[in-house]
């Protein structure tokens, strides 16, 4: 059922929600001259509205449930205290949260990342408690960017996976489609109950039609892993890379982290921080040996993980939702779309050669 949210109901609904939820949404960063530069997800200040006039946020929505730095445990080394040398879990704030303005690609990425943090054997309590506390409110894309290739990644500008509620712009106001019970509850809590006699099908088709960028992935599952690993194009692909963390830090599907202890006087904290396979120290052993010592190996790792290992392990497609962030912000223009096509073509060429 689609609901209609008029412009003034939007603000009033948000202030109603602010009483029981912590609100998050895209907020514009401002340059020195006050001009809006780009958006990131932030906690909204009282009365602040999420800025929905954006392409996509510079950093993905993953930080909402997987902050770049997060305290996991605290401890004390003070032996006069009974609890010295005991790790104490940092408690969650316990508040329900709503995150507005999540693009469908980021939402699908959350569902994808969940495969890593929430498995039958292991559950990551930090990730899960934020994930479960949050109602994810999507924002459909009627004007996708030229770098968006989400229709090639089993996603799309109106894709609903990972969302509780999907919004799309309608004149001055918004349309809202509840996807889960959480989403319906949110609509009720905000008092957004006016039914709209509309269906999003045509808008969805129109938006999908605006996506101009596509990649081929159909051969990736078929290909031989070691063959691809040994393909002749890696050095050329990797040449320009400077091994920064931009592509992985901006990516909604990259989930790697590092755990660090920091002690100040007698009081310690165990912190989890994002890490990146593009950094040389990512794989350094305590012996000093680094099995992934060259840039080519690291670049290959990133693409092989996203486009081959993940594909083989989970059988759920590639580990990329097509948001285009790494394409836009790589300082040296390494483009996953080109690499995916290279890998895909390499595999199909290999298959053809075998048949012949």
């Amino acid at each position, binding site marked *: 059922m689609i609901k209609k949210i008029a412009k003034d109901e939007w603000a009033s609904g948000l202030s109603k929600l602010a009483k029981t939820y912590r609100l998050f949404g895209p907020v514009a960063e401002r340059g020195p001259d006050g001009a809006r530069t780009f958006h990131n997800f932030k906690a909204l200040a009282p009365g602040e509205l999420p800025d929905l006039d954006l392409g996509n946020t*510079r950093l993905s929505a993953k930080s909402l449930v997987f902050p770049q*730095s997060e305290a996991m445990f605290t401890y004390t080394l003070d032996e006069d205290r009974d609890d010295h040398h005991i790790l104490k879990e940092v408690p969650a704030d316990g508040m329900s949260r709503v995150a507005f303005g999540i693009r469908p690609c980021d939402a699908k990425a959350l569902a994808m990342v969940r495969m890593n943090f929430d498995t039958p054997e292991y559950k990551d309590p930090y990730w899960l408690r934020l994930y479960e506390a949050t109602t994810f409110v999507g924002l459909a894309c009627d004007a996708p960017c030229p770098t968006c290739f989400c229709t090639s990644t089993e996603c799309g500008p109106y894709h609903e996976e990972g969302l509780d509620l999907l919004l799309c712009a309608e004149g001055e106001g918004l349309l809202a489609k509840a996807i889960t019970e959480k989403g319906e509850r949110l609509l009720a809590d905000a008092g957004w109950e006016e039914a709209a006699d509309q269906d999003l099908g045509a808008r969805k088709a129109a938006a999908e039609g605006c996506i101009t960028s596509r990649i081929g992935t159909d051969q990736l599952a078929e290909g031989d892993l070691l063959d691809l690993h040994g393909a002749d194009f890696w050095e050329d692909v990797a040449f320009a890379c400077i091994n920064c*963390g931009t592509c992985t830090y901006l990516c909604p599907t990259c989930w790697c982290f590092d755990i660090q202890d920091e002690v100040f006087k007698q009081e310690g904290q165990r912190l989890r921080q994002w890490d990146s396979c593009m950094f040389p120290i990512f794989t350094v052993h305590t012996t000093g040996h680094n099995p992934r010592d060259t840039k080519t190996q690291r670049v290959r790792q990133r693409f092989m993980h996203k486009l081959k290992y993940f594909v083989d392990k989970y059988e759920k497609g590639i580990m990329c939702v097509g948001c285009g962030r790494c394409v836009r912000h790589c*300082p040296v223009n390494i*483009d996953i779309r080109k690499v995916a096509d290279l890998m895909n073509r390499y595999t199909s060429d290999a298959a053809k050669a075998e048949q012949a």
Partner: protein
Amino acid sequence: MLTYIDEIRAASARLLQEGAVEMVVGFRQGSQPMMNEPCLIRRPEDVDTLVWDSHCGINLTNYLTNRKEKIAVIAKGCDARNIVTHIIENKIEREQLYILGVPCQGMVDKRQIAMRVAGEITEVGESDTEIRVQTTRGEIQTFAKAEVLQQNCTLCTHRNPVLYDALIAEAVSEQTVDRYTDVAAIEAMTIGERQQYFQDLFAPCIRCYACRNACPLCYCPTCFVDEAQPQWVGKGQDAVDVMTFHFLRAYHCAGRCTDCGACERACPVGINMRVLTKKLEKDCVNNFGWEAGLSPDVRPALDTFNLDDPDKLIK
């Protein structure tokens, strides 16, 4: 400048054919408007993939070290100064390089252009003086190049390479500008204002280290931020750790930075960390009469001692 590419290709093909070099480091067409990708050419028949336009801002000096081949490199004014610095610091030998010097007219700042148009840029073209962009809304807008250059290029006083084996075009005229108005503006602030300024400046930093890695000067085998024994600085998002990283990174570039702008250009969140390195540069010029990377035969300010060096600090 639009004709530079013909000479770049011809010279590259010649050098490869004659066996004078084994590879050429240059740029190929990027997949994004206003982006080119550094690349390596080994065969004369591939030189046509090389491009040259106003989007070749990345510093190619990064791509020369730790190789055995004899390399030809296409070097702008700033790249040439970083090559000089590499030679002084024994990172590379002069004999290993064939420098194809490019008299530079400045590289454009794609973010500035993106900010000034509505919609997304889909195509870009240029003439000698103008940049023309087309957007997803079908509009075409033109900008005078001089108005959309990277800030460091508007202030550049060494556009002509200082060291080269061949120049691919006639030298361009050098600019006379006051390089340090932004530094002076910060110096004029009160202590409290400066503290606030730097806290705000670095607040969006995600410590991706693109600024560090884009910089040819940052070649330590293990950077101090990555060191674990001892651990000099916390690795997370604590604001003091972030600022410590920036402070020390800048200081490690003292007397070496050429203000090529690679750091700022690489930053995914648009931080102008150059205000730190420029301050160091200004102090080097004013106190030691030193500008980095002008000659391989002069030892840098920070590794020489002169009796008349200012020493007000030491009591």
